[in-house]
């Protein structure tokens, strides 16, 4: 899949001028509110007509103002999951789900009703009316409804924003399964670093209507200075791990990363399960010697790769941990005192609590337990 966007759109005082290209399975449009994320997805979905520019999905031109092309939304085959669900109140859940079927030619129907219902766990809701559903159930039905129209691309505008933490935790696994098994590329609008760290494969960072950065998720999240100011502290590395064992005595779980074993509080995951961790830069400290007499359980040997541009008193130090990229946020003073420079071997000390709570909250889908 490929998504090519280069548009300019004015809305009152605000101008969006965004250009990016993405090929990820789940592209996150990330930025604070008012940065133009929703305007951008609305332009891709055909809900607004950009004043100028071009949008191309999988080689199909949807908008090209110079050539006078504007494909109306009902011919784009782009699914859209809205923040508020927008289920049809006069139709049952089943009728809502099947709404898009009317307009998909028979030979292009790929999504199977049963498979989608199963993927989203909404089989028991089919005869209900939207008014009787909880917020989380509504969003799952809205996702199913969009999927069953067999879209080429699925847009999601902060689908979890109106839900509380418990409901979010209920939906994350479905979004992960959708990303990994759904077969439809997704563009997700979000303003939560935790959310995109968990879900995104690529990230486009928006700020005041401009694209500040775009690229693979792991790379973007490593660089605090690419993120909007209030989120800089959330920057960190994404590390893929595998459950290597459990310690019954101390209630711990061992996770295997490339650079070594990490110890975390006991997780309800089976042996061998994969888990993506986010190690925040501000939660990693560096030591020149193997640490002794420290309460932190996790220390991995690493090599300094690069030292970023300083940002006030702080500076990001990129590390290579036997193939896993990590980043630590130190003060400029410490960098100087320790004499850090590319190539220097160090020990990265990760406080146990630095593991992403939301990633830890992940419950695998029932059939994997």
């Amino acid at each position, binding site marked *: 899949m490929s998504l090519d966007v280069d548009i300019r759109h004015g809305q009152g005082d605000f101008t969006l001028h965004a250009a990016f290209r993405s090929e990820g399975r789940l592209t996150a449009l990330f930025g604070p509110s008012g940065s133009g994320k929703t305007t951008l997805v609305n332009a891709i979905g055909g809900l607004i007509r950009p004043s100028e520019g071009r949008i191309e999905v999988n080689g199909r031109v949807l908008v090209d103002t110079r050539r006078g092309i504007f494909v109306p939304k009902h011919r784009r085959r782009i699914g859209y999951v809205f923040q508020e669900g*927008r289920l049809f109140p*006069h139709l049952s859940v089943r009728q809502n789900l099947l709404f898009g079927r009317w307009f998909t030619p028979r030979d292009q129907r790929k999504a199977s009703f049963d498979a989608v219902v199963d993927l989203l766990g909404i089989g028991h809701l089919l005869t209900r009316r939207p008014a009787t559903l909880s917020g989380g159930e509504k969003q799952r039905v809205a996702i199913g409804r969009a999927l069953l129209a067999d879209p080429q691309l699925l847009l999601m505008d902060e689908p979890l924003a109106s839900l509380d933490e418990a409901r979010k935790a209920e939906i994350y696994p479905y979004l992960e399964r959708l990303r990994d098994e759904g077969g439809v590329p997704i563009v997700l609008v979000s303003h939560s670093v935790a959310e995109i760290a968990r879900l995104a494969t690529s990230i486009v960072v928006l700020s005041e209507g401009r694209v500040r950065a775009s690229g693979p998720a792991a790379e973007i999240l490593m660089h605090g200075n690419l993120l909007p100011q209030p989120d800089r502290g959330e920057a960190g590395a994404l590390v893929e791990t595998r459950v290597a064992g459990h310690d019954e005595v101390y209630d711990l779980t061992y996770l295997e990363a490339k650079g070594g074993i990490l110890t975390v509080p006991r997780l309800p995951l089976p042996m061998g399960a994969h888990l993506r961790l986010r190690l925040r830069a501000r939660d990693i400290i560096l030591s020149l010697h193997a640490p002794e007499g420290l309460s932190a359980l996790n220390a991995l040997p690493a090599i300094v790769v690069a030292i970023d541009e300083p940002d006030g008193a702080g500076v990001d130090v990129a590390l290579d941990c036997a193939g896993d990229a990590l980043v630590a946020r130190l003060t400029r003073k410490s960098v100087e005192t320790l004499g850090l420079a590319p190539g220097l071997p160090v020990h990265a000390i990760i406080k146990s609590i630095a593991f992403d709570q939301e990633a830890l909250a992940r419950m695998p889908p029932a059939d994997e337990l």
Partner: protein
Amino acid sequence: MIDWLSPEEWTAVGLSLKVALTAMAASVLPGIAVALILERGRFWGRQVLDVLVHLPLVLPPVVVGYFLLLGFGRRGPIGALLDEQFGIVFSFRWTGAALACAIMGFPLLVRAIRLSIEAVDRKLEDAAGTLGAHPVFVFFAVTLPLILPGILAGMVLSFAKAMGEFGATITFVSNIPGETQTLPSAIYTFTQVPGGEAGALRLTLVSIAVSVAALLASEWMARRVRRRLAA
């Protein structure tokens, strides 16, 4: 039960029901169309149309009836044309009464439908569009079911107005027993003759009964629709 009203009175009741139902049925589709145009349309002359539609609400009914007489009478420009081309005659016929009633009730019908169109969440229509639905299908599958309560309310108002219409009807098509003498005209006639009080009272009771029944029926339908949307 049948004896309760004289044959002439039954005729007036039946005629009134026929006129009111015809007026209501004939104005529903134009009412929906005009409400849509007024609520969603953006064109020059929208304000003019708005005023025209609402005129019967504020003009004396006699004036509306007189306009109809000028326009749709046998010699009127529209009346003559319809007569020659299609053989349709309004003047001094029950169809003329229905036309007068439809026009007098039209602003009420349009207002009720407009209010319900205004209340429709347009985001739902956008959502239907992203699912591949053509705007025409969106209207029939999403918008129309959502404004159904407003349409029903408008229909009841239009029917009730038609049952009670007097001034425009009597001016346009007069007061011919069996052809254009509707309930209000019949009541009026009774009050003009000595000893007609009993007849006037009987027809008044009929008139009240029909109006209350229409209101109850519309409440019942509206509640069913609401329950469908909410539960």
